């Protein structure tokens, strides 16, 4: 099944250092305290990767049980059943089912099965299925404090006898349960197993669960009054909607306003660092390479880090409290129009800031189809990198005092661009959902509504840390490579001073020199060679260079055009842009930035995937190059066709 077994440890199998160690798999349904248990067992030493060939994140870590005993703990995705309906659940089957495993992953030696004491009736069905695998099982009973608080009851010794396997009670935030568990884990080869495994036939398993609960004198917990009280506000048709909108507003504001100064610091730091290099490295090309390509490249990635950390912090907090499930519940009907479900809403919302965290946020979706559809649509949301491009182009197209009715025309166009982006994202997601859903059965929609909780700082921290470190490790390499290549293309071949002087360039004038280098660079030849592709849209080679350089990050387009304009008229670059004319071809002499061309450019930027960081994250999150290639392809075609349409329409109207 997997053609790309990864030996370095983050991908396919486990790292070689873990070979020969006892492996424990943490298994349980969602909301059973599985991740909390995993985090408290392994601390922040967990490694993340992907299971080979699928979009399922994999977590495993080592822990020490004693002086000279280390074991490996793997956190399997939350699952309600061994009868899988999503790729996450398929992974659980592949890892645990020794007769049926088709991934080259290590089969665990034993399982830690988390059972939420407040949802015991349902959880026993999963336990019965897990016992069919024949692997040794230790039950970790969680949320017994909640059970007691809600007047439920369970006789744990009787429960242990009824199940026939070791049972350890671990309450989050209390260390003594964990100590017991480590003790039990150290003797995993002598765990008890029931004489007869529990049945899995529908009628029999019900009877079995009832008899286990009866003999352990289980009393169901009462309704959680605190949760009901909060829900009666949060899910109220009017008050709840207001709370939801307010939460989203604060969410948005935090990501933009709190992150902005932090992003400025990152930018300032890197420009300071670049200046330092320029000052101390006196070999011209090396200094430019280090300061622009290397430091500039890293800086252009790290500038997104504050947004990513904040976003994941907020999502982890919302998820930890239980509000995220409520927000998804409120939005489900709206998202259903695009064939998606409520949980996809958070990912699309995040993409307004940046598609990278948006795509990373699709991890909360249980269905791989929804996840892919959302990932394919997310890059169309108007991210913050498009904003400077839109501002430049709209101000070139419309005078500041232009009006549409009572509204400022520039504002109306900006709003239309945001709205069109969001609608396109939903439409694309709907198309991909339809396309990928052919054949397979429809995944029934269900969403557990967990009681409200105070979020665990350790889980929040682990989630933020995982997201931030994965972002840094994987994306830095890709954007670094891209910016280096781009810099080389824009600055080579090297031009000697003698050659420039011979061409009539004033070598003392920096703008003239950079303009000459740019005009004769490899990028310029590429810009000219792709002219046939972009000519129907009205773009000339200078715009093409801008588009080429915007592959590193969209806002680079503004800087590149600025560079080109400054080269022509260093005193007034803005004026230079406005008066720039097409240099060659049949349309020579036409103003380059006339309304139809600007409209085409705006539409092109709205749809084209000019962002290598997004491509990198798509690769990482989807587990293969297939989906980023599809995304790049479909977005380019969409961008080109719609840009041509926009140009034609605007040309006809004006």
């Amino acid at each position, binding site marked *: 099944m997997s053609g790309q077994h990864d030996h370095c440890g983050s991908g396919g199998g486990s790292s070689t250092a873990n070979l020969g160690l006892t492996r424990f798999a943490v298994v349980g349904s969602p909301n059973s305290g599985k991740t909390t248990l995993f985090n408290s067992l392994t601390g922040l030493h967990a490694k993340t990767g992907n299971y080979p060939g699928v979009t399922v994140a994999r977590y495993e870590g080592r822990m020490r049980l004693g002086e000279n005993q280390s074991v490996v703990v793997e956190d399997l995705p939350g699952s309600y059943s061994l009868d899988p309906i999503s790729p996450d659940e398929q992974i659980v089957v592949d890892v645990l*089912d020794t007769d049926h495993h088709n991934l080259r992953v290590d089969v665990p030696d034993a399982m830690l099965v988390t059972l939420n004491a407040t949802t015991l009736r349902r959880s026993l069905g999963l336990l019965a299925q897990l016992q069919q695998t024949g692997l040794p099982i230790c039950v970790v009973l969680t949320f017994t404090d909640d059970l007691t608080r809600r007047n439920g009851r369970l006789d744990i010794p009787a429960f242990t006898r009824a199940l026939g396997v070791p049972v350890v009670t671990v309450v989050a935030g209390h260390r003594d349960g964990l100590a017991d568990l480590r003790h039990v884990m150290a003797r995993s080869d002598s765990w008890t197993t029931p004489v007869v495994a529990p049945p899995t036939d529908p009628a029999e398993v019900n009877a079995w669960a009832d008899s286990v609960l009866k003999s352990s004198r289980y009393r169901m917990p009462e309704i959680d009054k605190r949760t009901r009280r909060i829900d009666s506000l949060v899910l109220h048709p009017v008050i709840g909607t207001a709370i939801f909108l307010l939460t989203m507003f604060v969410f948005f504001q935090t990501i933009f306003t709190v992150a902005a100064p932090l992003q400025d610091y990152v930018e300032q730091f890197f420009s300071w660092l670049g200046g330092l290099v320029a000052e101390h490295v006196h070999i011209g090309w090396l200094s430019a390479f280090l300061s622009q390509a290397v430091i500039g490249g890293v800086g252009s990635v790290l500038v997104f880090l504050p947004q990513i950390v904040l976003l994941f912090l907020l999502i982890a907090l919302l998820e930890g409290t239980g509000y995220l499930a409520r927000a998804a519940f409120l939005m489900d009907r709206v998202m259903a129009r695009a064939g998606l479900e409520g949980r996809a809403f958070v990912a699309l919302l995040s993409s307004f800031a940046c598609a990278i965290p948006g795509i990373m946020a699709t991890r909360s979706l249980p269905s791989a189809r929804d996840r892919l559809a959302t990932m394919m649509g997310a890059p169309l949301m108007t991210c913050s990198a498009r904003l400077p491009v839109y501002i430049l182009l709209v101000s070139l197209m419309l005078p500041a005092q232009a009006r549409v009715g009572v509204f400022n025309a520039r504002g109306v166009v900006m709003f239309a661009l945001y709205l069109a982006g969001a609608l396109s994202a939903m439409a694309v997601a709907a198309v991909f959902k339809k396309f990928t859903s052919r054949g397979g059965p*429809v995944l029934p929609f269900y969403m557990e509504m967990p009681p409200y909780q105070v979020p665990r700082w350790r889980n929040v921290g682990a989630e933020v840390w995982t997201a931030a470190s994965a972002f840094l490790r994987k994306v830095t390499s890709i954007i670094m490579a891209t910016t280096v290549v781009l810099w080389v293309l824009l600055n080579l071949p090297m031009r000697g001073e003698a050659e420039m002087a011979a061409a009539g360039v004033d070598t003392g004038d920096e703008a003239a020199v950079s303009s000459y280098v740019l005009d004769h660079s490899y990028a310029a030849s590429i810009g000219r060679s792709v002219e046939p592709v972009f000519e129907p849209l009205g773009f000339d080679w200078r715009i093409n260079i801008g588009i080429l350089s915007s592959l590193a990050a969209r806002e680079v387009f503004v800087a590149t055009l600025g560079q080109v304009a400054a080269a022509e008229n260093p005193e007034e670059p803005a004026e230079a842009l406005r008066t720039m004319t097409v240099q060659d071809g049949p349309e020579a002499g036409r103003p380059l930035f006339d309304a139809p061309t600007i409209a085409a450019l705006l539409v092109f930027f709205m749809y084209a995937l000019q962002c290598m960081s997004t491509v990198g994250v798509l690769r990482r999150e989807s587990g293969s190059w297939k989906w980023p290639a599809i995304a790049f392809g479909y977005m380019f075609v969409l961008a080109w066709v719609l840009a041509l349409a926009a140009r034609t329409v605007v040309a006809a109207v004006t």
Partner: protein
Amino acid sequence: MSSVSDRMRGRVLASAPGDGPRLTLDGLERGQRARVVGYGEEVEPSAARRLFDLGLVPGIEVTMVRRAPLRDPVIFRVGDYEIALRRAQSRGIHVESVQ
């Protein structure tokens, strides 16, 4: 020898008894209690097995808790926990009223 997941996939859930007046989960009013009796014939076998694994098993007591402001989905208390289902799912779950 068949694997565990194959055996789980092979589980057959009996359809709801066809006679008498039909009450399905989506017909419950807020606060109304009912007992699950089975799944409609139109429910795909894989979906029925999933509903079973989610605890919507014959005999379990279900209470309708609240509707989303846009009418769908709906939160139900199933045995000891709460779950949101869309009408597309709750329509296929047959229940009998509990006084």
